């Protein structure tokens, strides 16, 4: 939490959410929809930036700067170190997301001077953003165990882009009617994390509820996928020579 980049990003996100009030004022009758959409997008994008910027150096920076040496010579296991870094970053992201969410709720209150019952669904969208960030952190951690920060950032960003449009990629494969391409896009669809499932900003901004089935499914998906990546990180890091 002492990394200054965090404060810059959170401050910037809060300002952006506040500016959504201005965007809302020039939008007739849909101020609230605009505010919620911009607010949730800001939380998601800035959370993603924090997750990637901090996540790519989670292990690599410790090895590179050798701050890990005195630490690993204490009675701890390597997997404990990796797990600690993962959970620590997720806690940081949780606190930052709560700060940004507070900004969104403040802007919402400023706009309407009241909260509607359906506004509670905004919390579901924020929860999904947190699940998404949890998954992104796991991807970053995985790459950070064997790759440089720049490559880790590139890999994570590409996986996020492809994973966010996983359904479109699969649909494209089906449309081509090329069996090879169809198989490839299906493999990508199932292999890469599917981030598109976590985007419900459109629904909640219109006051629509999110089904409990989707909440359970997304939670299980994010936890299982992250667990696999974190365990792969444990394995890679436990075999690695720290030169």
């Amino acid at each position, binding site marked *: 939490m*002492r990394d200054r980049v965090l404060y810059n990003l959170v401050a910037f996100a809060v300002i952006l959410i506040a500016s959504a009030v201005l965007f809302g004022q020039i939008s007739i009758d849909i101020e609230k929809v605009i505010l919620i959409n911009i607010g949730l997008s800001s939380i998601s994008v800035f959370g993603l930036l924090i997750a990637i910027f901090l996540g790519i150096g989670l292990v690599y920076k410790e090895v590179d*700067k*050798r*701050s890990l*040496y*005195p*630490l*690993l*010579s*204490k*009675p*701890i*296991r390597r997997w404990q170190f990796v797990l600690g870094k993962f959970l620590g970053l997720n806690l940081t992201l949780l606190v930052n997301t709560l700060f940004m969410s507070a900004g969104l709720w403040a802007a919402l209150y400023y706009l309407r001077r009241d909260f509607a019952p359906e506004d509670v669904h905004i919390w579901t969208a924020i929860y999904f953003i947190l699940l998404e960030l949890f998954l992104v952190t796991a991807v970053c951690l995985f790459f950070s165990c064997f790759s440089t920060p720049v490559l880790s950032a590139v890999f994570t960003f590409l996986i996020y882009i492809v994973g966010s449009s996983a359904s479109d990629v699969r649909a494209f494969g089906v449309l081509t009617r090329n069996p090879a391409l169809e198989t490839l896009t299906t493999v990508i669809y199932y292999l890469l994390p599917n981030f598109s499932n976590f985007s419900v900003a459109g629904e909640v901004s219109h006051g629509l509820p999110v089904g409990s089935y989707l909440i359970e499914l997304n939670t299980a998906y994010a936890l299982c996928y992250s667990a696999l990546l974190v365990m792969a990180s444990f394995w890679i890091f436990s*075999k690695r*020579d*720290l*030169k």
Partner: protein
Amino acid sequence: MAAIEISGLTKDYYVGFWRKRPWRALDNLSLTVERGEVFGFLGHNGAGKTTALKLLTGLIFPTAGTASILGLPIGSPEAFRNVGYLPENPYFYDYLTADELLDYFARFFPLTPEQRRERREIVLEQAGLTEFRHVPLRKYSKGMLQRIGVAQAVLHNPEIVLLDEPMSGLDPVGRRDVRHLILQLKAEGKTVFFSTHILSDAEALCDRVAILHRGKLVGVGQIADLLQRQSGFEAILESCPPDLLPRLQQLAAAPIVASGGQHRLEIAEQNIPQLLSYCASNSVRLLSLNPLRFSLEDYFVELLRTREPASESPAAGSKTARSYRRRSPSPATPSGKPCATACSITWSLLPSS
């Protein structure tokens, strides 16, 4: 039970981009460090000292061989309960203060908050950092970082302390403080295993030393045995007439050095009566006659020289070896003596292959 037991420890690194080939950083290292001794690990840069220490701390994995610390295999967290480690050129989270860093490290051990506070006070005092305890580490000098590194290594009062180049980056006062700390640890009955290429530190502190050369252990023995060896006497003469010099040179074991109206010569014990006789008959003032002691530096340089292939310049191939030779104090150097042969009497000199 020995403090540290190393048996056939070998480490290969793979170098090259396309065609990876093994490069042996440590070759079949076997040695035992007894409890309560200060053990120096010597060798020039790249000799394999840090590799050996990293293997002992589980930071890298051996290609072959085994090692144990207090009977526990290296790499297991249990082995580290009684081990403190200072890495070479340590780096710590620089946004933390010394107090915060030590408290963080202390939490890895079963200590109560009161014990943690107590240990912090003690090691900060030992490291001379009490007044800087609330200053973020990013504002520390290199010497201060080295001292906080030593402090974290002894924080949990370990039985074995592994120090990788503990004097690196320290000013004379800092070096004296670390030397004092090592002696204090020895007095407390701790085992200290430290690597260095500053031979005067090893000479001042160690009970035994091991010398590594190109990843191989080339010598191991007790400092006391080595330093007790005399290799002749040094005489300083004044008012020495020039016509006497050729006769004195016949007595001397090395070329006579003239400086500031004085002459310095190294002489074997059996030639001393003859020297005294010359002095008396030629009105030469004998200012001093002192035994020459065989220094660790002499041993080290000669040992490495004998290990170099004949085709190469003896021990001068590396920059480090050259710097040792330059620093060697000429009055104490028994030039021309077969040092390695002499040392083999008291030291276990290992085969070169």
